[in-house]
Each structure stands twice: as C-alpha cells, then as structure tokens.
C-alpha cells in the first residue's frame, strides 16, 4: 500500500479537536484508534505496522494502540488478530460454528499434501529431501506445487550444502488461514519440542531446532529471480511471488 500524500498529514492533525487541557492527548489517541480501526476494517488482508504508521499522528506507538484496540474488541463479534508481523480483523473464533461455510479447497487436499504441509510448518526451513525422509516416501512434484498454489508454502532459499537444495517454509497466508499468531502457536508445538521429534537426528543428540520463518539462515542462500526452480514454478502457474 502506498503512503498517503503529504496533504493528508496536516489535515489529519488539524482535524483533531483539542479543546480540553489534557484532553488533547486523549483525543489524539482516540483518533489514532479510529484510524487503525478504519484501515484494518477496510482491508481484507492483514496489514503491517509499517503500512499503518503513515496514517497515525507523529510518533504514535502503533503496537500499543493495536494492543488497546485488540483489547477493546476482545469481547466483540469480530477480533483484532495478529498474523506474523501483520494485523487483521477476523470474526470471533467462538462464533465459527455459527458462520461455518463449506470449503472445497482443503477438502480436496490429499493426506500426503496435508502431511507435507505439517512437516514444512514444523520443520522449516526444510528441503524436499528432508520432507521425504520424514514421510519415508518420495514426494510427488504436485504436492509441493499444490501447497504453493494454495499460497501456504513458499521457497525460502537454497541450503548451503552440496546440490544447494531449495528450502521451503510457510507464508503469512498460512498463519492467517489457520488462525495462528506466529509459528509458536502451531498446535502441539511445546510437546514436540520437548520430545525432540522436530530434530532430524535421534533425540540422543537433543538438538532441537524450532520452526523458523525469519530471514535467511546462515546455511541458506537467497533465491535468484532467474533461479531455474523458481522459473519452473512460475511456468507451471505457481505463485507469482514465491518470496512474498
């Protein structure tokens, strides 16, 4: 989203009615909350704080405002939720049974695809060979394509090991779809961490990697735009922006 032009800023601050002595600060805060409300309500996609800040008053503490707003909506029919680094309004989870709609997309997803998705989510960054090792079976090319097309999985980079295999991870859409604030919210995460089952080695080593969707790791290289594997995905009609 583009930043507003310069004209909006002064208009915005002038509009704030600052009548009472200490009322000014409260008014500004109230206005910032309204602005956040309006922006997040109007968008169907989660928005980052960077996208929101330009609309707030100078030096506004956006995180604190968002937390306040989240609190204000905690008992309502819609909630303000955090999805990775972004925020969005979503219908309250407890009303799900009431609003439930049929969805065909995931119905058609094979057990293989769902297992692969779970492996990527819990083991990321993970290579295709590692996925195959965990499932004990060769992964069809179609499975990963399907997950990338759904927008849940992306290519992250290339592992700095012989053959430079592509590493995969989940996307922000994945968090949004499964109502997760972060990868730490993945179900059973604590238990899996404790059991050492997220390791590629025997638990004897007790080296427990956590799922990681941050920047490239030391052993990952960035994907080039003209990377043959990226191009192959694009030509198969995969996601246009795998690194988004």
């Amino acid at each position, binding site marked *: 989203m583009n930043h507003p032009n310069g004209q909006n800023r002064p208009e915005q601050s002038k509009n704030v009615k600052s009548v009472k002595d200490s009322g000014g600060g409260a008014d500004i805060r109230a206005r910032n909350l309204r602005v956040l409300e309006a922006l997040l309500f109007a968008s169907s996609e989660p928005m980052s704080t960077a996208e929101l800040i330009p609309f707030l008053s100078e030096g506004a503490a956006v995180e604190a405002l968002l937390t306040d707003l989240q609190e204000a909506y905690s008992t309502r029919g819609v909630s303000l939720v955090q999805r990775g680094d972004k925020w*969005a309004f979503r219908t309250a989870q407890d009303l799900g049974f009431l609003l439930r*709609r049929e969805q065909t997309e995931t119905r058609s997803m094979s057990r293989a695809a769902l*297992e692969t*998705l779970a492996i990527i989510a819990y083991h990321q960054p993970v290579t295709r060979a590692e996925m195959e090792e*965990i499932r*004990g079976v060769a992964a069809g090319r179609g499975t990963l394509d399907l997950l990338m097309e759904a927008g849940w999985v992306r290519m992250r980079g290339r592992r700095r090991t012989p053959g430079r295999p592509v590493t995969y991870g989940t996307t922000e859409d994945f968090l949004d779809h499964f109502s997760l604030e972060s990868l730490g919210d993945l179900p059973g995460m604590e238990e899996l961490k404790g059991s050492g089952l997220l390791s590629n080695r025997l638990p*004897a080593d007790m080296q427990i990697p956590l799922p990681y969707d941050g920047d490239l790791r030391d052993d990952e290289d960035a994907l080039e735009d003209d990377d043959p594997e990226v191009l192959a995905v694009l030509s198969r009609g995969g996601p246009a922006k795998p690194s988004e």
Partner: protein
Amino acid sequence: MGVADEQDWFAQDPQTERAGADAPDAEVLYVDVEGFEGPLDLLLELARRQKLDLANISVLALAEQYLEFIERVRKKRIEIAADYLVMAAWLAYLKSRLMVPQVPGDEEPSGEMMAALLQFRLKRLEAMRRASEQLMNRPRLGVQVFGRGDPEPVDIARHQVWKVDLFALLKAYTGLRERGIVVDYALGARTVWSLKEARKILERLIGEEGEWAAFDTYLAQYLVEPEDRATVLASSFSASLELVREGQIEMRQSLTFGPLLIRRRKSDKRNA
C-alpha cells in the same frame, strides 16, 4: 507377538474400508499396498496393531511382520514400489543385527541404534500426522473464521505529470513546420573528391608548364566553397604525393606551413 494375519489387519484398519473380507486376496493386497503412503506408513500401521504406544513396540517383531508382508505380496507377483523393497532390505539387516550380538570393534551401527532410529522415525511421522490433523482442526479462515467480506478498496487517484517544457514544444512545432517544406532547400549531396578525381584534375592543372607555382593557386577555383576546402585539399595533396612518388612532379616547401610549391618534373619529360 506373532505375525498378524492379513485379514485381521483389514478388519482393524479404518483406512481401508474398500477391502472387504470377501474380496479376492490378490486384489485386496494390491489395494492395500496402494493404500499406504510408503513403507514408513505401512510400518506405522503395523506398529499401531502391535501397541498403541510406539515407545513400547518390539522393533524386531515389527521388522518380521513387515518382511512377512512383503514376502507374501511378492509371492502373489504383485508389483510393489522400490521404496518398500529398500525398507525390506534395511529391516532384514536390522533383524540380523538385533539377533547377532555385536562384535567388539564393529564399526557398523548396532542393532539397538538402528532400532532406535526406526522408532524415532515412526514417532516423528506419527507426530507430523497428528499435527496435520490438529492443524486442519484449527479455526480456519473462510471456514469458521472470516475476514472482511466487503473490503473497501483504496481509491487511487493517478495523476500524470507530463515532462514537457516550452522548448520541447517549440522544437516540435518548428520541426514540424520545416518538415513540410523540406523540398525547397534540399541541397546536393556534399562534395567529396576521390583520390582518382583529384589526380585527374591535378594532372590537367599542372599541365606542361614546368614552373614552380603554389599548390593553392592551382586549386583556387575549387576552394571557393568553404565546405569543399577540406576534401579538395586533402585529396589533392594525397594525389600529389602519389605523383611525386611516380616521378611526374616535384614539390617544395621552404619553411614549416610555408607555401607548398609544385611543378612538373622537367627531366622526366626530357627522358620521355
């Protein structure tokens, strides 16, 4: 624990509803192998029949069951994927390692290590399988949780700023007006004296006189047009050098940038 009968498996297996007890054996087996997502999946299923808790399974019994199963499938001449055979070979080796005590100095992983590894992989697969189920049971966007159904689009007003100044405008106009009358001032192509031409002209001009004369005076009539000067002088001078080399003319210049004098070589004429 003994080797389970195949009919037992099917009776207990919730995944293979298609395989009825009265179906022909071959077909049942075929369907069943296809129903598994690889050897690890098959092992996991076998292990589940043995014990609910993977931590307490007998890996040896598991290996035996697997090998027995593969053996029976092969006897029925049903093609099975290489993955299953590789696992069978590994399990056969595991079985031998478990049954024969380890010799000191043996570099190979012990049977116990291998068993632990298999157990780990089975547990890990089971964990991921459970995780995928839990994931699908999360409140999902578009199923139980909804975003804004009618998002209000951002109205982007695009302004085009044209990068045009008065000079560009005037240049376009004058260029256009001049383009219309291009015929009126079309000039002949620029004169270029070729060496051959210059030599011909020079030979004619120098004639038979045999007197020293300034190079420029010979060419005076051709040097009127300023744009022709360069080509006339350059080509004539080159041609004159050629004539000197052939011994037809002589050239003289007494000081730098002084007048260049030229005449037909007399001796040359005499000799001829």
